[in-house]
């Protein structure tokens, strides 16, 4: 099931879709499944499941510390697929967010096959642009997976067009120049970038990087088809005293953000 389904449902309701990120394996594999399910029940339309990586160069300290802990606990690519399977069973589209090397090592074709078998919708590749490598797009197409690539405020119009033509599912627009992490301001660059992106494609455009509350979600929902929140969810888990408190806190944030994308 393509992620597009979640965006179409939101559009039919006259609102933006809410996309929530959490890494697989934090605080444990089962704990991450519990937290992600709670996020979905509280109003997240689609889920990004982070595949932990040793060198996450576009992630800020919050996500770094969670994925470090997940790796130290021994989280494997197979565990990530198990999380995908459990989340997909909720009916919410589940995409994997992964740096390229773990997928390259697993084998692009094998990963596409196994992700599709687990019910996953696709992959967001933060350090793989469509022109970087020949192996991923054909493998994903063969298994009907979404290929979600990033556009950035620094992207030229020409590169935006190249990128969106390779995207399936949706386009991920990074609101600011920088790494993941919550911000007081989500950036004036975001609206302009979304406009430039929408000029090249009919795919939904979701905005990520920096969103931490319902007010910011509402601000972005005014010009984008989707709002992505990541570090803010991870922080809820990191700061919780135990899993139950963390899951409750994640659900509370999801509800706040879900209200934000519905505010008009």
């Amino acid at each position, binding site marked *: 099931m393509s992620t597009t389904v979640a965006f179409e449902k939101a559009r039919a309701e006259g609102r933006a879709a809410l996309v929530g990120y959490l890494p697989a394996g934090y605080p444990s594999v089962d704990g991450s499944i519990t937290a992600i399910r709670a996020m979905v029940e509280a109003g997240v339309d689609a889920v990004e499941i982070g595949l932990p990586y040793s060198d996450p160069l576009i992630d*800020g300290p919050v996500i770094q510390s969670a994925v470090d802990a997940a790796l130290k606990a021994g989280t494997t690519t197979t565990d990530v697929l198990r999380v995908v399977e459990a989340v997909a069973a909720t009916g919410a589209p589940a995409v994997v967010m992964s740096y390229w090397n773990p997928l*390259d090592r697993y084998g692009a074709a094998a990963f596409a096959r196994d992700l599709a078998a687990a019910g996953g919708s696709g992959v967001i590749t933060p350090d793989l642009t469509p022109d970087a490598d020949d192996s991923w797009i054909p493998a994903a197409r063969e298994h009907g997976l979404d290929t979600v690539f990033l556009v950035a405020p620094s992207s030229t119009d020409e590169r935006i067009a190249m990128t969106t033509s390779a995207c399936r599912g949706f386009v991920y627009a990074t609101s600011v*120049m920088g*790494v993941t992490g919550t911000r007081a301001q989500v950036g004036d660059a975001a609206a302009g970038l979304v406009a430039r992106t929408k000029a090249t494609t009919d795919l939904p455009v979701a905005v990520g990087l920096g969103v931490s509350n319902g007010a910011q979600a509402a601000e972005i929902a005014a010009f984008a088809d989707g709002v992505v929140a990541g570090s803010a969810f991870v922080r809820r888990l990191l700061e919780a005293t135990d899993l139950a408190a963390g899951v409750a806190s994640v659900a509370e944030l999801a509800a706040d953000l879900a209200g934000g994308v519905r505010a008009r």
Partner: protein
Amino acid sequence: MDTRPDPGHVLSADRADRPGRFGPYGGRYVPEALIAALDELDREYTAAKQDPAFTSELDHLLTTYTGRPTPVTEAARFGAEAAGGARVLLKREDLNHTGSHKINNVLGQALLTKRIGKPRVIAETGAGQHGVATATAAALMGLECVIYMGEEDTRRQALNVARMRLLGATVVPVTTGSRTLKDAINEALRDWVTNVATTNYVFGTVAGPHPFPTLVRDLQRIIGVEARQQVLDLTGRLPDAVAACVGGGSNAIGIFHAFVDDPDVALYGFEAGGDGVATGRHAATITAGSPGVLHGARSYLLQDDMGQTIESHSISAGLDYPGVGPEHAWLKDTGRATYEPVDDADAMEAFRLLCRTEGIIPAIESSHALAGARRLGERLGPDATILVNLSGRGDKDVDTAAKWFGLMDESGEVAP
């Protein structure tokens, strides 16, 4: 029949239909946010290298500021007593301003930064040599400078931290991951993606996304260009072998490049074997690693079955890196260069021998090449001529060496 790729194709990156590829290696695996800056750097570099104003300014600095050309020194006692009687010639990059070959690259990239019009430079550093060189060039050209250095390395190389601060740079200790060079590169890339509008990343080695492997190689080529002519002038012929240490691989590519089309000159890269490759505690990326993507390029790297980077280990902070430049990966696969590990103990023995036989204190990094030259001397015999890239001097390593040889006790006091 020899089915290996034509060695002349090895250095065809500039001509390739996919820029920055060395066979299957190299490329650009980075966030989209950095593509514009990499394109800008590539474009400006391509224009600059054809601009006489740029090349003459760089040549002028290399002569009057760095002290080029660096000499070739005949290490007669070292050859006779420590390298099987072979004729050992040292390319003296240790005599450069700031003490290593790193300045060759940095002056070029700092001039490029000025040309692009950005006021701030950042860099990663392991041993501190690239950080010191970058801080030096930044001071010379009036650029703001921030150096990322693993916390573990700031401890091992405290003297170089002080040098960078004296030169006006901000040194940021990196406390994530293994707290060494790999993590310093991650932090520098995070800074760059955030501040790319004002900042140029002065990358220190021939790794990273295109155009860095080509750019840094071109700026280090001068080592081999000079050395090839110097050896011809001195001996009347080309050397039988060229030896260099390989971490990321910039000094090795720098000296190899001029000899790639000389089929009778064997090229040897010596990687850091740490406690021994069999122990798993090493930085012998080509010897014991496998192809994958790290820090924006496809090359060999130390990784586990999941594609997670494995932390490297070496007594030498400058070689303590789990990746290697993509051109080395291709030189390895084509068979044009040979890569072997040298463990900590062998490197330190070569360090000691060069001190005692030649009155030269080498960097521990370069001591890996010296240990390799000893091995080659035994293998090739007394008729052989071996050119060694002495990439840096050992002033920064005196503390580490004094502890290794028991000249100081644990508290840092001189042993009786």
